[in-house]
């Protein structure tokens, strides 16, 4: 029955462009798909792996730049650039993950931040490679045969399809034994070690997978924007992702999915300037950490414990 509801929901999502929404709102829909993938990636790494990663946007941005450069410098077809975009992102993720996780998850957080800021600076300043602040314009659009996915309404379908596959993969990992072991590592890393669980390997898997999906998403998005410039690495993405995961609940697949959609659509409805939006997000983060640090997920855990205690009394 639940599976049936899911199918209906997916069909409805595919039918969205047929509702006659404006180009603006279809772009919002495309962005919502992207954020769903990015924030679920962060959810996997943080909510399951216990690693606060501030470099998800960097994987996305590296994917975008890799795809753009391959298409423009080497003339590759857009579809062909996507796997490489993902690969570049994975290598970056595994690199910093391996270097920092041998020390601690705290150094991973710091290293991920430093990487994010560094790549931003490099994208802006390494003009000979990245064309600097003006970016790489004139990217080709995605096409299959004669069908060109140029408009937002058209582009929505490949983006949605990718997002659904990516989310399905992440969901499956979370539900599997891999997800359970990640949770164990997150809750008590030392205990997991004494049980023979290779924490580093599992965490690298989570990082690699989320980097791969973010990188491919970034590459896809590049061919929607048809221009890639340093703004694709903006800290704004990280800040939004954090809000989506913290409010949705770290470790909660549906919570984060809903939060991703809500926090993409609602700010557009409210027409807040991006600075005010970030001030608000920052204030929400501070407030949440003071009052409800475990998020809604933490409340659920406490509630479950209460139910069990009552049941067993």
């Amino acid at each position: 029955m639940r599976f049936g509801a899911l199918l209906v929901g997916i069909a409805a999502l595919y039918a969205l462009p047929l509702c006659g929404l404006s180009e603006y709102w279809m772009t919002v829909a495309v962005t919502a798909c992207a954020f769903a993938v990015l924030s679920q990636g962060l959810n996997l790494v943080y909510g399951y792996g216990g690693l606060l990663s501030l470099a998800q946007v960097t994987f996305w941005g590296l994917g975008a730049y890799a795809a753009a450069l391959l298409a423009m410098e080497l003339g590759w077809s857009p579809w062909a650039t996507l796997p490489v975009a993902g690969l570049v992102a994975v290598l970056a993720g595994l690199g910093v993950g391996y270097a920092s996780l041998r020390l601690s998850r705290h150094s991973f957080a710091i290293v991920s931040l430093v990487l994010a800021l560094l790549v931003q600076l490099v994208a802006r300043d390494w003009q000979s490679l990245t064309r600097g602040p003006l970016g790489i314009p004139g990217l080709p659009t995605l096409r299959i045969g004669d069908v060109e996915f140029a408009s937002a309404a058209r582009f929505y379908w490949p983006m949605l399809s990718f997002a659904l596959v990516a989310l399905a993969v992440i969901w499956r990992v979370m539900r599997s034994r891999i997800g359970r072991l990640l949770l164990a590592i997150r809750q008590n890393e030392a205990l997991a070690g004494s049980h023979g669980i290779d924490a580093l390997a599992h965490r690298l898997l989570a990082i690699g997978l989320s980097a791969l999906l973010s990188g491919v998403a970034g590459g896809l998005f590049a061919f929607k924007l048809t221009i890639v410039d340093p703004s694709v690495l903006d800290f704004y993405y990280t800040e939004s992702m954090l809000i989506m995961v913290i409010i949705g609940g770290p470790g909660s697949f549906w919570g984060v999915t809903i939060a991703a959609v809500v926090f993409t659509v609602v700010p557009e409805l409210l027409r807040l300037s991006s600075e005010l939006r970030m001030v608000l997000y920052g204030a929400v983060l501070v407030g949440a950490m003071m009052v409800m640090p475990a998020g809604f997920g933490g409340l659920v855990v406490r509630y479950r414990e209460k139910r069990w205690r009552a049941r067993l009394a």
Partner: protein
Amino acid sequence: MTFGYLLTLLVNGLVIGAFYALLAMGLSLIFGVLEIVNFAHGEFYMLGALAALLAINYLHLGYWTTIVTVTLAGACVGWLFHRALLGGLAGHSFERSLLLTLGLGMVLQNGALYIFTATPQIVRTQFGMSSILLVDVRLTWVRLFALVWAAVGLIGLYLLLYRTRIGQAMRAVAENREAALIVGIRPERVARLAVMAGIALCFMSGAALAPVYVVTPTMGLIFAFKSFAIVVIGGFGSIGGAALAALSLGVIEALVGGTMSLVLADAVAFVAMILVLLFRPLGLFGTGVRI
């Protein structure tokens, strides 16, 4: 490539390195005493610069008055920061304090962007662009004074940590928290002062460097990310290590940037950090404190 040019690079590197040191040492101190990595550190530096901009350009306060006032303001902000936000966090999960300080940084940076816009602004001190020729190096007065302020900050921090009772307490807590508690050190007081000192140093650094470069609300993150790398390189809990690493980084960055490329200069911090993590994970001067 004249000797004068190289010497100029060296001096500029020392100036920047000295301020990297002040920020990194503040970070290290706050971490050592509270076990919190302050992700808003760069934004406090930015606030110091903004305050100096307002004081000099709009309130027409003199250069010296401004720097002193801004530093004191920093201490007050630090007190408030600890009182309102950090006090209850000590000992709690690392992620919680990370997200809290990150959120605060977001509020400060974007609030400043909203109010002042991203347009870079120049601080017009009474010294303007006039400079002095020392040995073979042409130094603007503001850059020379910045170096003086950095020295003041470093000496002041040294005196605090090594010549006062409370500074000794800070070092004790940073090195071995349980032992310090047993001998009767009150962590609250120590923590409050450590935060005040760290933030005051951020404000002072921002104010001193504001006339040397330009002021823009995004200057905080870009400057601070070097400080995070430095703390990893120097080793968590090693305040002296942070200073050494910072000065070295400043000089190397200046030399690389002046002779090769600016992009490579920015990358030095990152590459050094990764190398340290791969080969000496506890840091070059790490005390063996694993976080």
